[in-house]
């Protein structure tokens, strides 16, 4: 348990700091790289929660696909690869206040409602059982049985997004 807690603390710290850098750095490319760090930490957190398939997808799709997309976007819009001074707009303070306020409210709510609730320990559960219950196979089963319809809808959505992106980005 302690090991897990230490791992969580490190990952959470890294994720938070990297996320803060994402929204504060003055270099667009750096922001994308910090984002990679955040995403990777979050992926590792998923492993802590025994969700290895999600962790894998997180790494593959986010870091492999989305960040690459971002980098392409940065390059295509010919942003300066270097320090820029005016990446933030003039309502930074309002944004900060809003964010902090929101954080306060959320924290309050979460502490009120979950308090000291523990995650159910997985120590007593055997590896086989765990895999059978919530492993990649179980997730796959669920997707193709219980959540088949949403899955199909998501596919259509992806297709639509694809078509939309092409239409929007087309040069003529």
């Amino acid at each position: 348990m302690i090991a897990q807690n230490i791992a969580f603390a490190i990952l959470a710290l890294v994720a938070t700091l990297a996320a803060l850098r994402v929204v504060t750095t003055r270099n667009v490319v750096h922001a994308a790289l910090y984002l990679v760090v955040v995403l990777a930490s979050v992926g590792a957190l998923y492993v802590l929660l025994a969700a290895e398939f999600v962790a894998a997808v997180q790494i593959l799709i986010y870091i492999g696909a989305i960040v690459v997309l971002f980098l392409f976007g940065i390059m295509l819009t010919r942003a300066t690869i270097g320090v820029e001074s005016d990446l933030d707009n003039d309502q930074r303070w309002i944004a900060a206040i809003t964010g902090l306020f929101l954080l306060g409210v959320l924290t309050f709510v979460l502490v009120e409602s979950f308090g000291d609730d523990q995650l159910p320990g997985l120590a007593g559960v055997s590896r086989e059982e765990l895999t059978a219950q919530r492993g990649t196979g179980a997730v796959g089963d669920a997707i193709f049985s219980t959540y088949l319809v949403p899955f199909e809808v998501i596919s259509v959505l992806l297709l639509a997004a694809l078509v939309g992106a092409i239409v929007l980005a087309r040069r003529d």
Partner: protein
Amino acid sequence: MLVNQFLLLGAVLFCIGVYGVLARRNGVLVLMSIELILNAVNINLVALGSVQGPEAAVAGQVFALFVVTIAAAEVGVGLAIVLLIYRNRSTVDLDEVDLMKG
């Protein structure tokens, strides 16, 4: 481990994302901030799922997967829009984009 560890981390990431969405000028950076928000949500989904037992854990993971997928789609479309704006106005500065001004 406490449930709240994960949930609070989610809340922190969420609020950072909100700040980014509100404070950033560059369209690409705003999209990145949105990714932060989505990740925060994902953490919540997976964590809350595993509180409730195996079935819910699977449900949480599946939902997280869907969100990842939608995030990909959203980035695709979002970047396409940013590109289009850039092409038309030679800038990705969202302050300049005020077509909805009354």
